[in-house]
Every structure is written in structure tokens, then in C-alpha cells.
């Protein structure tokens, strides 16, 4: 923000909101990383930690919402300030969802425990999660710098995650067809993969919100998509 408000308390309120969003982002990112690590290493203690961290994240989101609403009522923000606060609300909601997806992945760690996650699949999931977490980390950096250009660039990159997810989807189907005893584990892994793919979508949402906050314009057109899993048949030809 180039200039400051005549009312310094107003600046403090906006800074507070922005700081809390960054904190939420850091926690959500950490939760998702931990959840995948717990899955790959069958670490139920770590999974449990992710589940309890989600309470903190939910609480933070509600607090941000309350503060944002009070700020709107008190300051009647205009133009960039208004977009900033509306953006804060949207990003807060996206990050809260990211946390939920991390938590859901963590819960599945307990379900697949003991069945042993095939090494190859674990690597696939790890790779997908690396992509999604880089996306999330970068979008949070862009949030700090408020660069519309970088926000737009991130949005385009979601394609990679979608392609990776589709290939993992195929692989899981193959495992299930090979041996029905794999179905329980693979179904859980499929949900985990879907969760991670959704994290990428939320990162994209956040990028779009940052673009709007900075420019006042909405990013036009469909975002690029390479997720073709919704048309994949169970029995391949």
C-alpha cells in the first residue's frame, strides 16, 4: 500500500487482517504437507496433529471474518480498501477449505494404516502434493507482494496439477482392477489425491482474488483445465 490513511487506526485494522491471512496461509500449508507425509510414512501421530491443527485454522477464519465485518461497519471502506477487505474474506474461506482438505487426508491415514501404501503410488501422491504445495506457497507470496502479474501466472499453472491428478487416477484404477484387495486402500488414496488436487484449485481461487484486489478487474474466461478424470471410464477399451 503506497499511502497511509488519515486515520491510522484504519491502517492498523487492515494490516491486522493481512497479517492474519498470512498466518492462516502458513498453517494451512504446513497442515497439508504434514498430512501427505503422514500418509506416505503411515505416521498416525502426525495425522492426529493435523486434525487438531484444523481447529486453530477454523478459529482464525472466524476471527478474521468478525474483524473484517467490524471494519466494514466502522470504516465504510471504498475502492481498493473495500476490495482488500472483500478479498480477505474470500481468501480466508479458501484457506479454511484447504485446511479441511488436509484434515480429511490426515483422517484417511488411519484407514489405510497397516495395508501398506504401494511405493509407486505414494511417490505419485507425494509428487502431486509437491506441485499443489508449491502453488499454495507461491500464491501466499503473491498475496504478500500483491502482484497482479504473478497472480495471473499462477492461475495458468493449475493445469500441471490437473494433468498429474488425471494420471494418478488412471494408475489407481489399474491397481484396483489388478487385485480387488487393493480397492479399500486405492479408494482412500483416490480421495487423498482429489483433496490435493482441490488444494490447487483453492490456490487458483486465491490468485484470482489477489488479481481482483489489486486491479479491480476480474480475470476473464475459463481457467485452463487439464483434469480429464471425470470422463475416464472404469473399463478401458
Amino acid at each position, binding site marked *: 500500500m503506497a499511502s497511509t490513511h*488519515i*486515520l491510522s487506526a484504519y491502517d492498523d485494522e487492515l494490516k491486522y487482517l493481512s497479517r492474519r491471512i498470512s498466518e492462516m496461509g502458513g498453517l494451512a500449508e504446513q497442515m497439508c504437507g504434514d498430512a501427505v507425509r503422514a500418509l506416505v510414512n503411515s505416521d498416525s501421530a502426525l495425522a492426529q496433529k493435523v486434525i487438531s491443527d484444523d481447529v486453530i485454522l477454523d478459529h482464525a477464519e472466524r476471527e478474521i471474518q468478525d474483524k473484517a465485518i467490524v471494519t466494514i461497519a466502522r470504516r*465504510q471502506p*471504498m*475502492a481498493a480498501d*473495500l476490495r482488500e477487505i472483500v478479498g480477505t474474506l474470500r481468501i480466508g474461506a479458501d484457506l479454511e477449505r484447504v485446511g479441511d482438505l488436509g484434515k480429511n487426508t490426515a483422517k484417511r491415514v488411519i484407514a489405510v494404516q497397516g495395508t501398506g501404501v504401494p511405493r509407486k503410488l505414494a511417490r505419485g501422491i507425494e509428487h502431486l502434493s509437491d506441485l499443489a504445495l508449491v502453488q499454495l506457497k507461491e500464491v501466499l507470496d503473491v498475496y504478500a507482494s500483491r502482484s497482479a502479474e504473478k497472480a495471473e501466472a499462477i492461475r495458468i499453472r493449475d493445469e500441471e496439477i490437473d494433468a498429474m491428478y488425471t494420471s494418478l487416477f488412471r494408475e489407481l484404477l489399474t491397481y484396483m482392477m489388478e487385485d480387488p484387495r487393493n480397492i479399500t486402500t486405492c479408494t482412500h488414496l483416490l480421495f487423498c489425491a482429489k483433496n490435493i488436487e482441490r488444494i490447487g484449485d483453492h490456490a487458483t481461487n486465491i490468485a484470482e482474488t489477489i488479481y481482483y484486489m489489486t*486491479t479491480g478487474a476480474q480475470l476473464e474466461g475459463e481457467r485452463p483445465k487439464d483434469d480429464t478424470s471425470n470422463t475416464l471410464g472404469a473399463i478401458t477399451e
Partner: protein
Amino acid sequence: MNMMSEAAVEKALDQKMNDASYKMIGKDVSVYYGEKRALFDVNLNVRENTVTALIGPSGCGKSTFLRCLNRMNDTIENCRVTGRITLDTDDIYDQNIDVVELRARVGMVFQKPNPFPKSIYENISYGPRIHGLARNKADMDQIVEASLQRAGLWTEVKDRLHESGTGLSGGQQQRLCIARAVAVSPEVILMDEPCSALDPIATAKVEELIHELRANYTIVIVTHSMQQAARVSQRTAMFHLGQLVEENDTDKMFTNPDDQRTQDYIMGRFG
């Protein structure tokens, strides 16, 4: 009241606003108070059936511009206006223009309610009488009632039309002044901070009135309250240091203005 039809009326009005030619056109308007120049080549057009809000910090020239629109600046000694202002096709600074008639076509409401120290009835009937708008008492009664109806004041004062206008509350006095302006059937109504002396409830009533008047009149309002400009207007013009900085759709102006100075002003920032 039927919600659908109200929305339809609103939509028709917006359509009318977009199609309408300009009601008033200001071209290269400059104003000098003696040696001091208060307005610098302002080009601002006022659309028909539209509420246009003029905003900007104190001394930016917004009131000066407003007062050019019905030649109220004529009353100030040393004041000189250059450029051209037209109402429909008439140049309002033309020598042949009757200023009294101009001010009947372009009415004005001031910051502080200023009812005449006469009865409510006479406050309204004064204008129509001097402009010869009523042929008889029945005609005049009709004008008074219709004007008070339009200003949303009729039910509050109909039983005491012959009591003094100054006995009303501040908000009622201001609506009386609006009724008085409406009584001479103007085409344009100018309002110079009409709510700055009113409490929030009275302000809301005046704003509701402005909203309704838009269907029949063209309104230009100067306001210090950005929220008020955002609430009542469809177009907003921002003045700064005697210059027109930006004129835009109100919705755009308050979410994503084009000019940095507008941005800083409406967000309450140092430039």
C-alpha cells in the same frame, strides 16, 4: 407495492439515462473571483433523469460549479464565469436569457434549510404565484398538495398548512424547501449539501426523496459524504483544486476509480 414493477421502473430509468442526451452541458467552464481563479476549464455534462454527485475536498470548486448551473454566481460581486453552459439547447449565459426564468427551470436547495418565515402553504405557493403558474385558488391548492406529496411531506403537514414553516423540524424544513423547489416544475434541481445539517433519519428521508425525484427531474448534488454520493447518485464527478479530476459511473467510482487522486480522496488517504 409490486416489487417487480418497481424493479422494472428502475430498469427503464437506467435505460432512459443511458439513452438520454445531456440535459446540461458545461464546456470549458472557468470561474474567477476577482483575480483568483476557482475553476479551470471544466467540461462536465449532466445527464437527464440522473442524479449526478459532485465530490471533492473543501475548496475544490464543486459548489462553484454547481452555482454556475443556475447563475447563482451572478449574485457574487467580482465573480466572472467563462466558457459555455447550455440547458437543453439554450446558452444560459446568453444576454437574452431571463435569469428568473432560468432559476425556475433550474431550482436549488441549500445546505441549511431556509424556509420563508411564512406559513407552510405560502412557502410552496410563493414560486408558482410569481411565475403565474396557477389560475385560481383551486389550482394553487392542487400545486401545493402535489408538491408536498412529491416531497413526502404531505401526510405530516396537511393539517397545519397555515402554521409557520420555521416551526417544522430540520428534516421537515429541508423537505419543505425541496417541495418549494419542485412547486415551480423545474427541469433540473441543484442541491448543495442538502443533508449536512440533518440527522441520519432525516437524511435517509431526503435521500429517498432524491431517489424518487429522479424519475421526473435531473438532479445535481454536492455532498461531502462519499457514502451519500455512493447511495444516491448514478454518476459521480470528482473535483480537486478547481479541476475536474474524473467523472464516472458511481458504481465504478467507488469500487475502482480511474484516477489516483479520486482513489486517495474516497479512501481517506494522504495523496
